[in-house]
């Protein structure tokens, strides 16, 4: 059964139609990659899945998006939705506070005050994000003192701390060096045991390496959506083939 289902979704920025009739089903505990040239709408779609597009002025969406069969734009409480569907941003954005408080922000938001419980959540999240060993001795230090790669894993830990079901990752490695990038990739593969992951990436090799299913976007449309292996080895659409063999850049 699919975890997230997008049906007939159109999205406009003012008069500009940024997404055209999107239909996608995302399966549970898999990594789904969105690929395509920049400006093709893949990040825009991602942000529609936890309603971050609500912030954008002049943005209008039609269609339906369901999470476990429930319409996220209708009956669901928006804050609860964002708790269930976590997000990791393109640029690491730790809050200007201690590492501890960064991770604790989410659980505290959702009503967890107990110190012992918070401590447990923080250790678990940091371990799950494979950064515990690097920061365990400096939890009270500012998160801004970490390196870019560490900051991004911290942000993943922060997202995990609210126990989401789905994790949206918006080009999470585009600002990072190759070593940090491979750490995040390994982490994503490990995390899919427990979470449904959707990752936007500008890097085709990355999608091929770690994702189970891949959607190829072009000019606001999903050109092709298939098993990653099939899509990369036997693309059914000419445009997909052109893109993966490098003609679109």
């Amino acid at each position: 059964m699919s975890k997230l289902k997008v049906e007939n979704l159109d999205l406009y920025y003012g008069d500009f139609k940024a997404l055209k009739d999107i239909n996608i089903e995302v399966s549970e505990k898999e990594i789904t990659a969105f690929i395509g040239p920049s400006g093709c709408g893949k990040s825009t779609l991602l942000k529609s899945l936890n309603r971050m597009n609500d912030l954008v002025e002049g943005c209008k969406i039609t269609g339906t998006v369901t999470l476990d069969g429930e319409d996220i734009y209708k009956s669901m409480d928006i804050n609860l939705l964002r708790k269930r569907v976590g997000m990791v941003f393109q640029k690491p954005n730790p809050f200007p506070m201690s590492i501890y408080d960064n991770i604790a922000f989410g659980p505290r938001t959702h009503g967890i005050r107990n110190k012992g419980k918070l401590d447990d959540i923080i250790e678990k999240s940091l371990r799950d994000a494979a950064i515990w060993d690097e920061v365990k001795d400096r939890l009270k230090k500012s998160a801004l003192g970490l390196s870019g790669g560490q900051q991004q894993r911290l942000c993943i830990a922060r997202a995990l701390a609210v126990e989401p079901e789905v994790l949206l990752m918006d080009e999470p490695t585009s600002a990072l060096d190759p070593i940090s990038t491979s750490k995040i990739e390994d982490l994503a593969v490990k995390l899919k045991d427990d979470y449904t992951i959707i990752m936007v990436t500008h890097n085709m090799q990355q999608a091929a390496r770690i994702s189970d299913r891949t959607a190829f976007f072009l000019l606001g449309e999903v050109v092709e959506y298939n098993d990653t292996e099939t899509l990369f080895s036997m693309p059914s659409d000419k445009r997909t083939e052109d893109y993966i063999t490098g003609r679109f850049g």
Partner: protein
Amino acid sequence: MNNYKEKLMQFVFFIAAGTSVLAVALICIFLFANGLPAIGKIGVFEFLLGQKWKPSNNIYGIFPMILGSIYVTAGAIMIGVPIGIFTSVFMAKYCPKVIYPFLKSAIELLAGIPSVVYGFFGLMVFVPLIREIFHVRGTTMLAACVLLAIMILPTIIGVSESAIRTVPKEYYEGALALGATHERSIFRVVLPAAKSGIMAGVVLGIGRAVGETMAVIMVAGNQPRMPQGLLKGVRTMTANIVIEMGYAAQLHREALIATGVVLFIFILIINLSVSALNRRFENGSN
């Protein structure tokens, strides 16, 4: 010829640039030279901590006025800062685009209204109101606090609004994406990130309140005695100078100038903390 003109004008610019240095030097020299001897004659402790100001008996203790300035400022801050900060949050994070320009220029108007007009408004509205409600003489510390609170609003709103606006929007979005409400994202993430900028605004407001003269004189009652509560009259350092300077002579006059010296030192300390906070905020946001 041309070279000569270049050199000459460069010198002129240099001299002009020195004016502000000269002005500060002159202000310091004249204030201190005219005020410090009086403090010497009266005695530092008698002057600063003396609780009686009776020029006719040659008793000059400005402690009541120091306290008066501090109390009135503290009152204004307690009322004005929460209102100012919440309003700045509205301006930066809630205000619909359509009405923003109107509110912005309203705040500019609030900043531009002369202090006599504020004082006059306080005298004609707050003072009678307090007299009616509490059955006391209307010119009270309370009136001064409320009036000053309104007067420092534009300073606090302006500075903290721009501090809030310089916080990267990624912080706000990050908090939102964790399921935090608009309010929680702003008050638990954005405002803490803007803290030193907002503090600079508050301290600037303190400076304005301490230095305000005319509006306070018009509503505070100005009795030169130890402050006795919100519903009693109070005299600030600034009021002390303006009220008595017109007829003071000799030691009395010098004691008033010395009051100015103390006020000046207060302001210098406040200014130093503002620039320290500003530096911290700029460093923090980089």
